[in-house]
């Protein structure tokens, strides 16, 4: 099937097998290795990208099903040589070790900063809580980091959320 999608602002038209995931399309066909495959089953967050600006898992998205959508990968976060504030904060706070979860953490955080509403740890669900460390921890829990960089990830995101 031939599909067209916007990838980091550019229209890409590709002929795909309906089985291919958006993640494999990015990594194997479009040369965008930023989105990582950690589990291929929605359980780790390493493949997180922004779909029409919202964070989503590219491993559980069939490429054919995201036809016409705008995909932003970690490669598309920076503007030219200027890092996205989250990218800069991750470096400053040493918010990664092996770096394999990092693109997913960054895309997830970028999406999370714009998400409205409460989280599972918000006391009063009618309020929109600020991004306290507890709120960030809960909202970022879909991104596993086996190196255990969470402490620094939370401080990096806190700095940007402020």
């Amino acid at each position, binding site marked *: 099937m031939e599909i067209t999608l916007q990838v980091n602002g550019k229209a890409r038209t590709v002929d795909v097998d309906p089985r291919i995931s958006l993640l494999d399309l990015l990594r194997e066909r479009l040369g965008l290795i930023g989105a990582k495959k*950690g589990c291929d089953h929605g359980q780790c967050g390493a493949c997180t990208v922004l779909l029409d600006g919202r964070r989503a898992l590219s491993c559980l998205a069939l490429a054919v099903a995201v036809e016409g959508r705008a995909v932003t990968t970690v490669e598309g976060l920076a503007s030219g040589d200027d890092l996205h504030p989250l990218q800069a904060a991750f*470096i400053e706070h040493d918010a*990664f*070790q092996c770096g394999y979860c990092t693109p997913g953490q960054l895309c997830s955080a970028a999406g999370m900063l714009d998400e409205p509403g409460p989280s599972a740890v918000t006391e009063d669900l009618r309020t929109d809580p600020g991004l306290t460390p507890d709120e960030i921890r*809960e909202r970022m829990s*879909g991104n596993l980091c*086996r190196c*255990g960089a969470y402490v620094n990830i939370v401080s990096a995101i806190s700095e940007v959320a402020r």
Partner: protein
Amino acid sequence: MNRIEGRVKVTGLATYAAEYPVEGLVHAFPVQSQIAKGRIRQVDAAQALAMPGVLAVLSSEDPPELAAAASGELALFQSREVAYRGQLVAAVVADTLDNARAAAAAVRVGYDPDDHDVSLRADHPGLYKPDTVNPGLPTDTEKGDVEAGLAAAATVVEVTYATPVLHNNPMEPHAAIACWDDEGRLLVYDTAQGTTWSRDILARVLGLPADRVRVVSRHVGGGFGSKGTPRPQAVLAALAARAVGRPVKAVLTRQQMFDVTGYRTPTIQRLRLGADAEGRLTALEHVAYEQSSTLEEFAEQTATPTRIMYATPALRTAHRLVRLDVATPSWMRAPGEAPGMYALESAMDELAYAAGMDPIELRVVNEPDTEPHSGLPYSSRDLVGCLREGARRFEWERRDPAPGVRRDGEWLVGTGVAASTYPARRRPSRARAVRREDGDYLVQVAAADIGTGARTALTTIAAGALGVDPDQVHVELGDSDLPAAPVAGGSMGTASWGSAVVRACEELKSDGREGVADTTEEIEGDAQFARHAFGAQFAEVRVSSVTGEVRVSRLLGVFAAGHIIDPQLARSQFIGGMTMGMGMALMEETLTDEEFGGFLRRDLAQYHVPACADVRDVEAVWLDERDVELNPMGSKGIGEIGIVGTAAAIGNAVFHATGHRLRELPITPAKILMSRF
């Protein structure tokens, strides 16, 4: 200094093994055994071969040629015998991953199964005494008379602790791309913690001279031991590439990683401790029961930390192993120390309660002058300093030792402490340093950066040795064509590579143009010392009296680990290890499937590792140590000690909170509820 590769990592440009753009690449996908023991009758690949895009099927029907030296987990498709469920028995090579995977599901394997035995028991008739335990240590040690010491003791603690199968689960799955050139040379992009060793082993397995194999691993997405030796995917990629005459990529799925990339052996550990009225140990015995596969002997050094921790007139340690129809266990962060110290430090806490002593004071009164089993002097040891500093920060003196009495609503609150330790070793390494034409310095060593920050640490070390700005130093690593170096493992990486880098830089400084170093002789000449890092872990937990949920509200690690080369990297390493220790304490567990063999919970939705929400207040600090007996940097390894003792500190805190001593990890709500009601 921030991580040198920080920018490429946050922009998604860092290239991991599976990500090299190679022309004409095709994909291999394994077929795994569905029995735990027996023989493969036949492999019927007809249907698979007829599927779209399929190029070849590899299996023991037509064993691909490997060297006679190939054995164990890497001797792919050589034998019809099945050693465990999940073992690779065939593989499909196809143009796309989806085609390869679909065809792999269509390969029909017929078996003649035998009865399997996959359960570790302390009374297993197959238990035996291996010749040595890793890494070449004595299996048993005995000093003094344990029975007499116990008989004379005022307080005796006899306990059995158990730890489950644990999986390293680095975020990056094991992957390899193999390319053969026209001259029969092999290039493998692999997920390797050490390219030199990886190259040597691959060459041996494939029957090639080492100089015809090159392994490249510029960025590695974590390994924690599981990438310390080549795993089957590297051999598979090489064989498949040879079979189809094209470069082949083999990436394991997360589920396959559970089966074929190693795991921490489950342990059953029996401890007997005796103490006199002042709390001084009169006897200490630690016996560990563990498993290995029928393919290879892997004997984890679980009881060895007990040999070096506390002064006692009678000390006995022993290891017994049983070979089961399971995959071969392997290294996982602090192999031996992590489960062993969990048991020892939990038992010490039990002893403190039994003797009516403060657990810190108990450890202090048992501080040895020399290493207990060997009598060697310590190059440095500051466990007491760590305990005291931690106690100060944790306001330990205000702690009421009574268990099960602090409540905050439904939550029971408790604190616990445990000691940690890890050997400070180094291995021979080579390195090269040259002055480039632009005046900057190039430092080459086949080290690996698996997330430890090796590039950054080696840059700091080289800049220090050269007396230049770090900006002028460029470190190249992750390639077996570089000067040979040991793996990133055993917390030896930085000490080993750094020693060679310092020597190469020293030579460059006197030579002006180039310096090459090989530290083999230097290390052979090292004086006899007991070299270990030490630490103290403090945990505060909250245990729900309603649900049995355990939340760690605070973790503090205080470490004495020699000179800290880079505080930012060190803090990340310590905290990362402690975070993994929290997982070990509270959630990590792979189940062995007694009925069918193999493992259950083979994914990240079932094998839980800590998530961001679990990690609240975790801090690591250190005491500065000057130790000239280690290496030119005066450093001790820091990659593993962070996980050692964490689980015991948390378990001890759970006891303090609830009054219940749970002696089997992980400490889950199920176990808490069943012990309480």
